[in-house]
């Protein structure tokens, strides 16, 4: 429970801060501070059980199927890290209160900071790798927000993005590594994983796991070559630098290596990847730090170097080295956080961070100077500070590796470290440079809010040297034991270890550093001439290239071209069909074919010629449409010949409506457009088209020549009359067996009608309306709008057509016909009135609106279907009944006919809506003022 409170507090603070974002700065500080302090208190209350081996833990089932729980534990390693996070967090909040300007949005700042704190605590406390990954990624995110806090500054945005990209990318590698680790170890539970080192290291995937995890750790801890984000992150407000980029977040990688030490360390792979990277980073960072002039840059590169040190120690793979790393973790946290705060104070007071423009601060800001010198000395590894002890431990561990190169390089790194630390301490406080440009007032020691936190940290750095065993001994010892998964080492932390190689190396490093510092300015040009490795520019270049590449690729592929989409679709279908044909083949089947009569062949020729003619006159649209009429006619004949009279009827009626529709649209399209595609393009399209045609034809041939299988249609045939109440099996299928399809089908028609209405209704406005009004045909037209013979014939045809429609509707259940065709006939008859007598004349005489018809039709169909529910039958269950009418006698009525009536209403409504709307638009084009004739 305590652990839940512990982890919940920062997030609670985030929530409170968001709620109280309009409250004052005091309130914000109070919320953040109180939560951090409370967290620290909770943590301390759990310290004793943790250290004495009764690890506090909690486990809440989360995803049992995947074996992932929400489990938290507070072993000594976690305790150490959590202490760091909360302790320094509290100090940073106090410091931030002093640091942030009056107008800064403290709520936003602190909520990001607390989000970060919670995420870091999560990493420390996670007892499950998935949970750890979640928190890990959240730290990257919080860091992104914090670095980008001053968001209008370009450096802040770039720094934030770079940090996110590198640490986020590493985090993703870590996701891969940890999940892979869990899969290999057989559990997501961290404790279980840690106990299965042998299993993991024996796996062939071990190197992969190791490298992925190291990518995560190295990016987070800014190891070469992933270090570049850290200096750039200095664009963040200084409290952020102090907290994230010195004391806590960057240590997450170190923590991770320590955490996974039992399962990953101890192999050659481990030693040969971790230690060299750490060592190289240590030297490189220190070297760069020595020649930087921006205080924060110096500190940033020093952090890079110090992180390298810790990583190197963990890479050595010995318990003592781990102990050294963990002890240095504490030391570094204390002095580096202090130094960042110190640098912040100086900038705050003097307005500059350029070391070349600063000096003699000891006299102007004595308190600040004291703590600065103290912290820098700790960084330099000068006795009696904690840094001295850990550095000696480091050198000791490097000597113990047995190699000569390692201690030699470590000493060089220590020398460089000492040099830049001393430079920081000496040049800044005692150096002769004039004070930098002062912002209005004379610089002086800042108020306590700013001064106290670094002072406390510097004191701790000193105390860690003076009384290491009391302050840190048990913690480091216990943490080392958990990290190494072994027994406690019997650690002895002290300033005086007796004279040994480590002491000699350590002292000579300090001495060499003083020498180096003496000649620093002389060396600077020399250093500048060294082949420089500007990771930042490399990164920027890579990012630009990535984005440009992505743009180019994306734009290359995603051209807004319908033709391309279609061609790809055709090709995919062709390739897949070809694959199946190639692999399994499909020849003609054994079914006897039906001999074709001469007339069938002639009609076929009609179709082929007309189709080819459409292609040939493709750009002469009107002609193409005439040939389309022939194709439609042949289709109807074919259906009729092939025993599908209903299809023939429908085809004829639909064809007429389609022709009308196209002619209406054609009217407003330009006459004879130029050809668009080049000859090669036409050849390519022709090839695709031919292949598609052959494929489709072949498939049809293969199916038709195979014997039909006894299918479900037999049931339809057998029951159509007896149960469906109709002899036209197709119609009974449509309105009864598969009435549900028809319901969907009329919905499609209804939606098409509505969409067409929605499309055309606003067409008179805007640019389309202007085009409509400006539209003039190039052709000369006959003045005879309504030829008399035509008008008279259509008037006679209307009642006749209605009668035929009624006939088709009423007997459709038994003979070819049905609601759909009937409605189309009515539609055509009404459209004929439009054609013959004009839009206004006809529109004024229509009684029922299309919307009403569509709605009514759907309602009838639905109500018919729902009627069955009242009898406990499923939707659309039909009933057959006989009604005796006077004069007429017994009439068979099926509820399916009512359904068919609904179908007819929707069809009529939709078709007339589509065509009348279209005609309406053209009407508006004809009126100079674009007025609506309705």
């Amino acid at each position, binding site marked *: 429970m305590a652990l839940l409170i512990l982890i919940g507090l920062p997030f609670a603070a985030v929530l409170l801060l968001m709620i109280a974002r309009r409250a004052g700065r005091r309130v914000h500080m109070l919320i953040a501070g109180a939560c951090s302090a409370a967290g620290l208190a909770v943590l301390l209350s759990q310290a004793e059980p943790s250290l004495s081996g009764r690890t506090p833990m909690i486990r809440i089932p989360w995803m049992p199927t995947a074996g992932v729980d929400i489990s938290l534990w507070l072993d000594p390693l976690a305790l150490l890290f959590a202490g760091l996070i909360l302790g320094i967090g509290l100090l940073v909040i106090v410091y931030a209160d002093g640091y942030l300007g009056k107008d800064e949005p403290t709520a936003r700042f602190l909520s990001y900071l607390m989000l970060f704190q919670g995420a870091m605590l999560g990493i420390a406390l996670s007892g499950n790798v998935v949970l750890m990954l979640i928190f890990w990624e959240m730290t990257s995110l919080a860091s992104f927000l914090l670095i980008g806090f001053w968001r209008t500054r370009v450096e802040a945005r770039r720094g934030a993005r770079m940090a996110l990209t590198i640490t986020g990318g590493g985090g993703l590698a870590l996701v891969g590594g940890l999940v892979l680790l869990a899969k290999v170890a057989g559990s997501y539970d961290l404790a279980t994983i840690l106990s299965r080192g042998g299993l993991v290291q024996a796996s062939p995937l071990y190197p992969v796991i190791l490298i992925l995890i190291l990518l995560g750790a190295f990016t987070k801890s800014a190891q070469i070559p992933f270090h570049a984000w850290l200096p750039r992150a200095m664009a963040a407000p200084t409290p952020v630098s102090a907290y994230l980029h010195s004391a806590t977040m960057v240590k997450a990688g170190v923590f991770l290596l320590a955490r996974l030490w039992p399962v990953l360390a101890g192999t050659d792979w481990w030693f040969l990847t971790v230690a060299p990277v750490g060592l190289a980073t240590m030297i490189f960072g220190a070297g760069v730090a020595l020649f930087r002039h921006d205080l924060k840059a110096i500190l940033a590169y020093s952090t890079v170097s110090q992180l390298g040190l810790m990583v190197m120690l963990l890479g050595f793979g010995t318990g003592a080295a781990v102990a050294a790393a963990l002890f240095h973790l504490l030391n570094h946290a204390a002095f580096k956080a202090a130094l960042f705060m110190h640098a912040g104070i100086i900038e705050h007071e003097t307005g500059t961070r350029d070391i070349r423009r600063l000096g003699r601060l000891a006299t102007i800001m004595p308190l600040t100077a004291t703590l600065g010198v103290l912290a820098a000395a700790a960084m330099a590894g000068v006795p009696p500070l904690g840094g001295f002890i850990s550095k000696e431990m480091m050198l000791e561990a490097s000597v113990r590796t047995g190699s000569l190169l390692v201690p030699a390089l470590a000493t060089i790194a220590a020398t460089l470290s000492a040099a830049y630390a001393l430079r920081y301490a000496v040049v800044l406080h005692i150096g002769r440079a004039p004070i930098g440009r002062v912002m209005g007032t004379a610089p002086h020691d800042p108020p306590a809010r700013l001064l106290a936190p670094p002072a406390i940290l510097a004191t701790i750095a000193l105390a860690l040297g003076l009384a290491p065993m009391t302050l840190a001994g048990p913690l480091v010892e216990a943490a080392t034991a958990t990290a190494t998964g072994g027994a406690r080492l019997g650690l002895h932390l002290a300033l005086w270890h007796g004279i040994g190689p480590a002491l000699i190396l350590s002292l000579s490093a300090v001495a060499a550093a003083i020498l180096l510092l003496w000649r620093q300015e002389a060396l600077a040009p020399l250093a500048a001439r060294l082949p420089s490795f500007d990771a930042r520019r490399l990164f920027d270049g890579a990012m630009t290239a990535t984005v440009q590449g992505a743009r180019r690729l994306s734009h290359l592929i995603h051209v807004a071209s319908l033709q391309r989409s279609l061609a790809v679709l055709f090709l995919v279908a062709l390739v897949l069909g070809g694959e199946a044909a190639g692999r399994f083949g499909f020849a003609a089947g054994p079914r006897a074919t039906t001999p074709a009569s001469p007339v069938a062949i002639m009609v076929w020729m009609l179709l082929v010629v007309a189709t080819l003619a459409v292609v040939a006159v493709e750009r002469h649209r009107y002609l193409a449409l005439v040939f389309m009429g022939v194709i439609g006619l042949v289709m109807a004949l074919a259906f009729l010949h092939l025993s599908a009279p209903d299809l023939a009827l429908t085809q004829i009626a639909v064809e007429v409506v389609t022709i009308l529709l196209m002619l209406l649209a054609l009217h407003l399209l330009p006459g004879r457009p130029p050809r668009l595609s080049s000859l090669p393009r036409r050849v390519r399209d022709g090839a695709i088209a031919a292949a598609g045609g052959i494929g489709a034809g072949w498939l049809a041939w293969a199916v038709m020549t195979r014997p039909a299988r006894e299918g479900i249609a037999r049931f339809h045939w057998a029951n159509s009359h007896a149960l469906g109440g109709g002899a036209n099996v197709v119609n009974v299928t449509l309105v009864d067996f598969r009435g549900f399809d028809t319901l969907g089908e009329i919905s499609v028609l209804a939606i098409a009608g509505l969409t067409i209405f929605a499309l055309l209704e606003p067409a008179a406005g805007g640019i389309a309306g202007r085009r409509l009004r400006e539209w003039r045909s190039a*052709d*000369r037209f*006959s*003045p005879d709008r*309504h*030829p*008399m013979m035509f008008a008279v*014939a259509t008037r006679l045809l209307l009642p006749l057509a209605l009668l035929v429609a009624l006939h088709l509707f009423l007997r459709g259940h038994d003979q070819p016909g049905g609601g759909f065709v009937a409605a189309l006939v009515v539609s055509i008859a009404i459209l004929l009135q439009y054609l013959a007598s*004009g839009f206004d004349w006809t529109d004024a005489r229509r009684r029922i609106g299309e919307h009403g018809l569509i709605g009514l039709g759907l309602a009838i169909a639905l109500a018919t279907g729902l009627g069955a529910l009242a009898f406990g039958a499923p939707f659309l269950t039909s009933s057959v009944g006989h009604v005796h009418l006077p004069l007429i006698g017994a009439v068979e009525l099926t509820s399916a006919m009512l359904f068919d009536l609904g179908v007819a209403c929707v069809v009529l409504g939709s078709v007339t809506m589509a065509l009348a709307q279209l005609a309406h638009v053209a009407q508006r084009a004809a009126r100079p003022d674009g007025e609506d*004739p309705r």
Partner: protein
Amino acid sequence: MSPAADTVVGLLVLIGAGFVLVGSWGLVRLPSVMERLHAPTKATTLGVGALLLASMIDGRTRYGNWTAHELLVTLFLFVTAPVAANMIAKVHLHRTRTVAGGEADGIAGPPPRPDDEGDWATFAEPRRNCPGTPPDP
């Protein structure tokens, strides 16, 4: 089926199909649009008519039921075919005057004017209140 009926139906079928064929043949061989327009009339009237008659007799003699609904096909054709012919002729007239270069006149040449001042409806705005003009809204 009686031999007589068989013969009658067979003859009717041949006559009908023959007129259909002659109609299309005329369509192919006649020299210009207006002449060709005469051709389908045969197919429409006697061609289809004879076939329908054959079908009626055939149904009666072979299956024993009188079906007269074939007549309806002819009825509808009689209503619609003249309208179609009229419209096509109007298209021809229109295009002989409006299309650049002109669509060729037939043997009969350009149509004469109806009277001294008037013109055909294809070329002139129909006069108000004449029979057949729909009232303007």
